[in-house]
C-alpha cells in the first residue's frame, strides 16, 4: 500500500504546524514553571527561608530554680529538693510491657500510674519520655540504676520540687506553690513564657504568690533543631536562666513554731512584732494545714475536710480575720480625747454601771459600776462608761482618725494573701454604705471597739507597737532579697503628746501588773521583762434587755460560734519596748482568761529567745507552766528537710 507523495507531504506539513502549536504551548508552560520557580526561590526566598528556620528550630525553655525562703536567722522555710522520677522511652524500651513488668519487680509501681503511662505512650511519639513513677525515693532510684542493663529505655530523671520543712507552721505566711492553671493564665496580662510549661509551679497564696515575680526567676532557653516529628536532633545553643531570688523573712522560726504550737487546739491567731522596727517575728493562725499537701496535689477528700472545718484552717486569720477590737480599742478612744484636750489623764468620770445617751441606756460590763474613775483606773478595770463619756465628747470622726494614726483601718503592705483593711467607721461611711445617719449610739459602741469597728490581729499588733514607741511603726515581712536588706518602713514620730502616751502606757502597765487589773492573772514577775497590755472581749451577739435583766448568759453555756472573741494586745518590756503582741482567740470567751495567757507565754518566749525560766511566772502558775512547756516541746515539729513522712 503506497500513499501519494503529495498527500504525505501535506500531512507532514500539518503535523509540523500542529507540533509547532503544541510545542509553543509547552514552551509557554515551561516558561511559567520557570517564572514560578523564580518567584518562589528568588523573590520570596527570604520569607520561606524564615519559615524553614521556624520549622527546624525549636526554642525549649529551661525553667529557673525558684528562690528559697529563709527565716531571719537563715533557717530554711521553703526549699527546692531534688525529686526523682522514673521515665520510660518507648523506642528504647522495645517491649514496654515486659520492661515495666521487670521494673515492677525492682521497685513498687502504682498499677494505676502504669496503666496511665502505657496509654500515654501509645498516644505520643516513641522518643518522648513518659513518667511511670513520680516522687521516687533515693533507694528505689539506686535500685533502678543498678538494674539499668536489664531495663532498656528506663532512666531516672531529676527535677526540683518545693518543700516546706516546717510544714503547717508557715502555711498562712508562705502559702504554697502549685501547677499553673488556666485561671492563673487568664488573670495575667502578659504571662511569662515559663507559665506555658505544663505543670510549672507558681505561688498560689501567701508570700509564694505575692512575691512570685521575685521568687520565680528568669527562664533560660535552648535552641534545638528538631525534625518533623518533634525529635530533638541537636542543641544549637543554650542560655541559662536566672534563678529566682532567695528571700529572708523577718520571721523567727523558733518563735513561730512555738506560737503555732501554743495556739494548737484553738481557733486563734497571734502576731508578734518588733515594737520599734515593725519586723514581724511570728505571725500565726490556727488551726493550720500542711502546704506540702498542696504542692503534691491535694486529694479532694483532704481539701473538703479543710474547707468544711468550722475553724477555717485555710484562713490566714492574722491579716484576713477582722474582729471587733473590743476593749483593746479603748486606748484609741482615750488618745483621741486626750489629744483633743477634752479631758486630762487625771480627770474623772463617774461610772454607775451604765450611761444614758439620747434616751438609750449603755451598760458597763460591771453592773455595779466602777464609781469615780480616771484614765488609769478606767483602763485597768476596763470600765466602759468612762469611754462612752469620752466618745460622746470627742465624736466618731476624731476617734476614727486616731484609729487610723495607730494603723487601724489601714491595709498594711504585707506580702500575704487577703490582707484586710478592717473598718474605722465615719459618718460619711455609714451614710454611703447603710444609707442611714450616724447616731451617737454608734459612737458609744465604737468607743469600746464594738459596733462597726473592725480590726485584724496584725492591725492590733501595729497599734500596740505604735503605743509602745510613739512612732509610726509599719509591719515588715521581707527582711532581705538575695542578701540585700529591705528598708524598714515608717518609723517617724506619730506626733502625739509624749505626756499623754506616757500616761497611757502606765495605764496599760497597770492592766497587767496591778492587782485589780483585768490582765493581772497573766503578769510577768521578772523585773525588766514586765509587760503592758490590754484585754478585750468583743461580743458577737446582741444582749437583749431581757437577758440583761435575768443575768447575762455565761460564755461557757453558749454554742461556740456565739461566744465572745477573746483579745489581748501588749508590749514588753514596759520600760524598753521590744516586742508587741496581739492575740485573738475566736469565740474564746474573756480576753483576760483566754487571750492574755497566750500573749504572756509568747512574749516571754520572744524575750528569752526560747523557753523562759519558770521564775518569770507568778509562783502559783509555775507547775502548770512547767507541764505546758514540756507538752509544747513535744508537739513542736522539727524542721523536716526532705518533706516526707510529715507527722
Amino acid at each position, binding site marked *: *500500500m*503506497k*500513499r501519494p507523495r503529495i*498527500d*504525505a507531504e*501535506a*500531512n*507532514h506539513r*500539518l*503535523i*509540523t504546524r*500542529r*507540533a509547532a*502549536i*503544541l*510545542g509553543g504551548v*509547552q*514552551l509557554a*508552560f*515551561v516558561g*511559567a*514553571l*520557570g517564572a*514560578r*520557580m*523564580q518567584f*518562589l*526561590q*528568588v523573590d*520570596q*526566598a527570604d*520569607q*520561606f*527561608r524564615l*519559615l*524553614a*528556620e521556624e*520549622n*527546624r528550630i525549636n526554642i525549649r525553655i529551661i525553667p529557673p530554680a525558684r528562690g528559697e525562703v529563709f527565716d531571719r536567722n537563715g533557717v530554711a522555710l521553703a526549699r527546692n529538693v531534688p525529686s526523682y522520677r522514673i521515665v520510660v522511652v518507648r523506642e528504647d524500651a522495645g517491649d514496654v510491657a515486659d520492661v515495666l513488668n521487670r521494673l515492677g519487680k525492682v521497685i513498687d509501681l502504682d498499677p494505676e500510674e502504669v496503666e496511665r503511662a502505657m496509654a500515654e505512650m501509645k498516644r505520643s511519639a516513641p522518643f518522648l519520655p513518659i513518667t511511670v513513677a513520680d516522687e521516687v525515693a533515693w533507694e528505689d532510684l539506686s535500685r533502678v540504676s543498678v538494674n539499668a542493663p536489664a531495663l532498656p529505655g528506663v532512666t531516672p530523671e531529676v527535677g526540683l520540687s518545693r518543700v516546706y520543712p516546717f510544714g503547717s507552721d508557715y502555711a498562712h505566711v508562705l502559702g504554697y506553690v502549685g501547677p499553673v492553671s488556666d485561671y492563673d493564665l487568664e488573670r495575667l496580662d502578659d504571662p511569662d513564657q515559663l507559665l506555658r510549661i505544663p505543670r510549672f509551679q507558681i505561688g498560689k497564696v501567701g508570700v509564694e504568690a505575692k512575691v512570685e515575680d521575685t521568687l520565680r526567676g528568669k527562664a533560660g532557653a535552648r535552641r534545638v*533543631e*528538631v*525534625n*518533623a*516529628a518533634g525529635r530533638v*536532633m541537636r542543641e544549637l545553643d543554650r542560655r541559662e536562666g536566672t534563678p529566682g531570688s532567695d528571700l529572708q523573712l523577718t520571721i523567727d522560726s523558733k518563735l513561730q513554731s512555738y506560737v503555732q504550737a501554743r495556739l494548737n487546739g484553738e481557733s486563734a491567731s497571734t502576731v508578734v512584732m518588733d515594737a520599734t522596727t515593725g519586723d514581724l517575728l511570728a505571725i500565726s493562725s490556727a488551726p493550720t494545714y500542711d502546704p506540702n499537701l498542696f504542692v503534691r496535689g491535694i486529694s479532694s477528700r483532704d481539701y473538703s475536710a479543710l474547707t468544711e472545718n468550722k475553724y477555717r484552717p485555710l484562713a490566714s486569720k492574722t491579716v484576713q480575720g477582722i474582729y471587733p477590737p473590743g476593749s483593746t480599742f479603748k486606748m484609741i478612744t482615750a488618745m483621741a480625747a486626750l489629744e483633743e484636750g477634752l479631758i486630762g489623764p487625771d480627770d474623772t468620770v463617774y461610772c454607775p454601771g451604765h450611761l444614758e445617751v439620747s434616751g438609750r441606756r449603755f451598760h458597763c460590763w460591771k453592773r455595779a459600776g466602777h464609781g469615780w474613775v480616771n484614765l488609769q483606773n478606767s483602763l485597768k478595770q476596763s470600765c466602759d462608761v468612762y469611754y462612752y463619756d469620752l466618745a460622746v465628747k470627742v465624736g466618731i470622726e476624731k476617734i476614727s482618725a486616731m484609729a487610723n494614726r495607730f494603723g487601724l483601718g489601714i491595709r498594711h503592705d504585707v506580702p500575704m494573701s487577703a490582707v484586710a483593711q478592717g473598718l474605722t467607721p465615719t459618718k460619711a461611711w455609714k451614710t454611703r454604705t447603710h444609707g442611714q445617719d450616724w447616731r451617737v449610739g454608734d459612737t458609744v459602741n465604737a468607743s469600746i471597739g464594738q459596733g462597726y469597728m473592725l480590726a485584724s490581729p496584725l492591725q492590733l499588733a501595729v497599734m500596740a507597737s505604735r503605743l509602745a514607741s510613739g512612732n509610726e511603726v509599719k509591719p515588715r515581712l521581707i527582711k532581705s532579697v538575695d542578701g540585700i536588706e529591705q528598708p524598714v518602713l515608717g518609723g517617724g514620730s506619730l506626733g502625739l503628746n509624749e505626756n499623754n502616751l506616757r500616761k497611757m502606757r502606765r495605764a496599760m502597765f497597770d492592766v497587767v501588773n496591778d492587782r485589780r487589773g483585768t490582765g493581772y492573772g497573766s503578769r510577768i514577775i521578772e523585773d525588766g521583762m514586765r509587760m503592758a497590755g490590754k484585754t478585750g472581749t468583743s461580743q458577737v451577739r446582741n444582749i437583749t434587755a431581757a437577758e440583761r435583766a435575768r443575768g447575762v448568759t455565761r460564755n461557757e453555756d453558749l454554742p461556740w460560734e456565739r461566744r465572745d472573741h477573746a483579745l489581748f494586745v501588749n508590749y514588753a518590756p514596759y520600760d524598753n519596748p521590744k516586742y508587741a503582741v496581739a492575740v485573738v482567740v475566736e469565740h474564746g470567751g474573756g480576753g483576760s482568761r483566754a487571750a492574755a495567757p497566750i500573749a504572756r507565754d509568747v512574749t516571754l518566749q520572744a524575750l528569752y529567745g526560747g523557753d523562759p525560766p519558770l521564775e518569770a511566772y507568778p509562783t502559783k502558775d509555775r507547775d502548770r507552766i512547767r507541764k505546758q512547756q514540756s507538752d509544747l516541746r513535744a508537739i513542736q515539729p522539727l524542721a523536716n528537710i526532705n518533706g516526707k513522712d510529715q507527722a
Partner: protein
Amino acid sequence: MSYLEYNAKYVPTGPRKILYLNWPLALLLAAVAGVGILMLYSVAGGSFTPWAEPQMKRFAVGFVLMVMVAMVPAWFWRNMASVAYLGTLLLLLGVEFFGSIGMGAQRWIDLGFIRLQPSELMKVTLVLVLAAYYDWLPAARKSRPLWVILPVILILIPTALVLRQPDLGTSILLMAAGGGLMFLAGVHWAYFAAVIAAGVGLITAVLQSRGTTWQLLQDYQFRRIDTFLDPSSDPLGAGYHITQSKIALGSGGWTGRGFMQGTQSRLNFLPEKHTDFIFTTLAEEFGFIGAFSLLTLYALIILFCVVSALANKDRFSSLLTLGIALNFFLFFAVNMSMVMGLAPVVGVPLPLVSYGGSAMLVLMLAFGLAQSAHVHRPR
C-alpha cells in the same frame, strides 16, 4: 508505509545501528537520571541505600532496554501496536481483579520479578496505538466523526480503568496525551474546542456533585482540590504537603542550601521526599540555579524529540516521537506544578528522577521507541 519505501542503502543495519542512535537525547536522559540518583543519595542522608542504588540499577536496565527497543525497526512496533494496546488493557483489567493495594490505590500487579503498574505502561501503548491508527487512516478521513470516535474510545477505555483504581493523576495524563496526539495528527480543531467546553462543564458538574448522592470523585480527591485552592486552610493536615513543599523550594534561594544541607528534607518536613516531592529537595539544596537547570534539561529532551520527529518523514514515527515527548512533558509539568503549588497534589512522579521502578522502565521503553523511530527514519 512499508519498509519498501525505505532506501535500504541508507538504513543502518546490524550493530552499526547503535551509532545512529539519537545520542544527545540518550545523554540528556542519563544526565536527568544522574540528577535523580544524586538527589536520592541526598534524601537518604548521604547513603546509596535504600534508594540511590536500586535506582542506578534500574536506570542501567532501562538504558539497555531502550537500546534494545531502538534496535528493532519502527515498523515492527507499528505492527505490534494493537497487540500491545490490547495486552496492556488486559493487564489493567488484571489490576482490577488481582492487583494488590498500594498507597490507598489499586495500581500494582505483581508479576513475581517486578511489581508492574499497567497504567504507566498504558501511557506508552496508548500513544503507540494512536500513532499507528493515524498512520493507517487516510488523511482525508481523520476529521470525520466516526473516525474521531474510534480513537476517543481507545483513549477512554484505559482512562476509565485507571480512574477506577483510583488514580486521578494518571487518568488525566492519559487523556491529555491521547488528546494531544489527536491534535498532532490533525483532527479538526472544532472537536478540541468542543471537548474543552465540555471539560469546563464537567469540572463544574464535579464540583457541584460534592456531598450529593451522585458524587463523582472520592472524598480524598475533593480534599486535594480544597487544599490546592487554599493550602493554608489546613497547614498541618491535608495542606501540609503543599505548604512544606513551598517552604523547601522557597528557602533554597538562588544557590540553594548546599548538597545534603536541606533542612526541610533532612528533618523530614517534606512528605514523599524520595518520590513525588523529590524536586523540592533539589530546589532546596541547589536553589533556583539547580531547579532551573533541571527544567532546562527537561526542555532540551522535549526539544530533541521534537526535532527528531519533525525531521522524520514517516508519519507513524513522527507522531510516536511527538506523543512520547508530550507524555514526558505532561509528566514533569504536572509534577512541578504540583510541588510549586500550581496544581493539586495528584501523585505524579518526576520522570527519571523520582524513585520508582515501573515509571523508570516504562519511560526508557518509550524513549526506546522514539530512538527506534530515529534510527529507522527514511533517508
